[in-house]
């Protein structure tokens, strides 16, 4: 049930607004992204897990999983990337858990960070160091 591009253009009339938002979000720092996400609220710990490889063989494709039971929304950050925000995910009523697995790009070794907005409006965060390997061959 793949839409062709022509179909997609018709369906996607609202796409421009999203595009503008995405452009504006370019090159944010982790602090900026967190401040926007939390509105400056205090940050707690616990109740959120972030699973990522200790060493990533290739920074282009690093599998990560976030899980925060009871979260309304989770923000994933790579503070060492040119633009820190990786993704946010909001969980709706039909979600079976508050878990998301995806694959992300890491420009260098860094502490990947996840922040969860819990159902009661509080925030918790966790970080996981990921070393991105350096290839040896070539110029």
């Amino acid at each position, binding site marked *: 049930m793949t839409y062709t591009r022509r179909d997609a253009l018709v*369906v996607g009339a609202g796409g421009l607004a999203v595009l503008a938002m995405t452009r504006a979000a370019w090159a944010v720092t982790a602090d900026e992204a967190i401040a926007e996400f939390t509105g400056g609220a205090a940050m707690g710990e616990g109740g959120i897990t972030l699973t990522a490889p200790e060493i990533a063989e290739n920074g282009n494709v690093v599998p990560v999983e976030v899980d925060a039971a009871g979260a309304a929304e989770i923000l994933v950050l790579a503070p060492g990337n040119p633009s820190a925000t990786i993704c946010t995910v909001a969980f709706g009523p039909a979600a079976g858990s508050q878990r998301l697995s995806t694959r992300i790009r890491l420009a260098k070794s860094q502490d990947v960070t996840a922040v969860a907005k819990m159902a009661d409006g509080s925030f918790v965060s966790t970080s996981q160091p990921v070393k991105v390997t350096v290839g040896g061959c070539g110029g």
Partner: protein
Amino acid sequence: MADAKPRVKAPASAAAGEPFAIKTLISHEMESGQRKDGDGNLIPQKIINRFTCDFNGTNVVDMTLSGGVSANPYIEFDAMIDQAGELKFTWYDDDGSVYEDAKTIDLA
């Protein structure tokens, strides 16, 4: 790369109230807007910027993506149903394209 092509792996049936995993993948270059071409000019961003999954009109997940998500975005999450129906998946491209897929699911 040719047109983005979504792939979805979801069970054909699920027990009411029991979470089940859904895996999605869409072929897409996720051009981050931070790479330069051979002449040193920035290659414009062109990414899947949003992904949603809904079940019978009720949201499962609503995800905003940046260029920090890898090419061919892989997204895995859990859904839960209380009736038979349709899981609808939607990917939004920076260029305005929208790609959709759907899976019917029965109560086990």
